[in-house]
């Protein structure tokens, strides 16, 4: 059953609301997947290089699945949605568009984001719309490794030398306010939650995420600054970093839109 044929797809208000929400999920995965792929050939060792490249492919694969479903509801192919929109049409959290920085920032961001993604997928997996709940369960299986990889690296970096610990704390200070922004509600969130498609609203998801990540961070002797992130990504307000990223990412597509090979 495609989404468009589901009870959800037959109501116009829900179609638009949920299509918008799926687009935000897809954009997060695509943009972070692209950032991960920028480490290919440059990661600290060949093992982590191969592993993170593999994670990058999986995140972009997840983006594709979300774009297909968003396209079901809103129209457009995954390629149109991924390559054919201007930066202000993107709904990803600002966190994922930030340049990779050093390995410490990459790992801290990966840990914070994947934990948030896990909470989000749980909320979808428990929902009543079967095609979406099934998709969330499938993705959760692959995300399990991403969580493991990020957390194990984080534990080792935070527990290594004083310099490593200090750099991880610095990365956390930089990432935290924007990591909170992963749970910035999309415009249509109310409609989505009220329809019962998602079992937890963004505020409740954020609370669960905060509890889970701070438990790990405190165990590692890391401090969280309680600074609030500004609104942003979910409403299309992005940094210049996204414009640069999309310029790189869409260069080939823009040369000959619609070309096949």
């Amino acid at each position, binding site marked *: 059953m495609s989404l468009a044929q589901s009870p959800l797809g037959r109501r116009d208000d829900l179609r638009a609301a949920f299509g918008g929400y799926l687009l935000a999920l897809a954009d997060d995965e695509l943009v972070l997947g692209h950032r991960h792929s920028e480490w290919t050939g440059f990661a600290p*060792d*060949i*093992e*982590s290089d*191969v*592993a993170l490249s*593999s*994670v990058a492919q999986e995140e972009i694969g997840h983006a594709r699945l979300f774009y297909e479903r968003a396209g079901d509801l809103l129209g457009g192919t995954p390629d149109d949605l991924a390559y054919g929109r201007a930066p202000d049409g993107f709904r990803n959290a600002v966190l994922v568009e930030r340049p990779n920085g050093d390995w410490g920032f990459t790992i801290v961001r990966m840990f914070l984001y994947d934990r948030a993604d896990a909470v989000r997928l749980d909320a979808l997996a428990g929902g009543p719309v079967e095609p979406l709940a099934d998709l969330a369960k499938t993705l959760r299986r692959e995300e399990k*490794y991403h969580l*493991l*990889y990020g957390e*194990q*690296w984080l534990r*080792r970096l935070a527990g290594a030398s004083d310099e490593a610990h200090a750099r991880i704390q610095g990365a956390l200070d930089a990432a935290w306010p924007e990591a909170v922004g992963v749970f910035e509600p999309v415009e249509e969130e109310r409609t989505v939650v009220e329809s019962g498609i998602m079992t937890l609203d963004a505020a409740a998801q954020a609370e669960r995420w905060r509890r889970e990540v701070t438990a790990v961070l405190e165990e590692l002797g890391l401090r969280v600054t309680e600074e609030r992130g500004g609104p942003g990504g979910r409403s299309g307000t992005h940094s210049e970093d996204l414009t640069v990223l999309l310029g790189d990412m869409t260069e080939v597509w823009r040369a000959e839109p619609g070309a096949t090979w």
Partner: protein
Amino acid sequence: MPALMELLRMTQQQASRIFAVFRQDTKNDPHVHVGEVHATDAEMALVLAKEQFARRDLCVNLWAVPMSAIAATAYDDADIFEPSTDKSYRFGGSYREQQRVMRTKRRDQR
């Protein structure tokens, strides 16, 4: 019996940061050595080994063993493996065929 790290001219510290990885394709197969990963410890070695050696073919289990824990024969002593008299009665070629048949059968049962 010399340690493998001595044969490879590695220090204890180097050898304890390299893990030999063994992959098991089904629960009925033996673990087979498929390569090495660099890692700070065994847990990280398994995390990295999963993507290096298990991202394409299906597998059910991985082992990671620090190189510093492996004992090995020396290549200089290779003559201990060479029969000096006719031992063809031990070859049991037909067993190999039997192993092939049994292996296919086990795979089907996965």
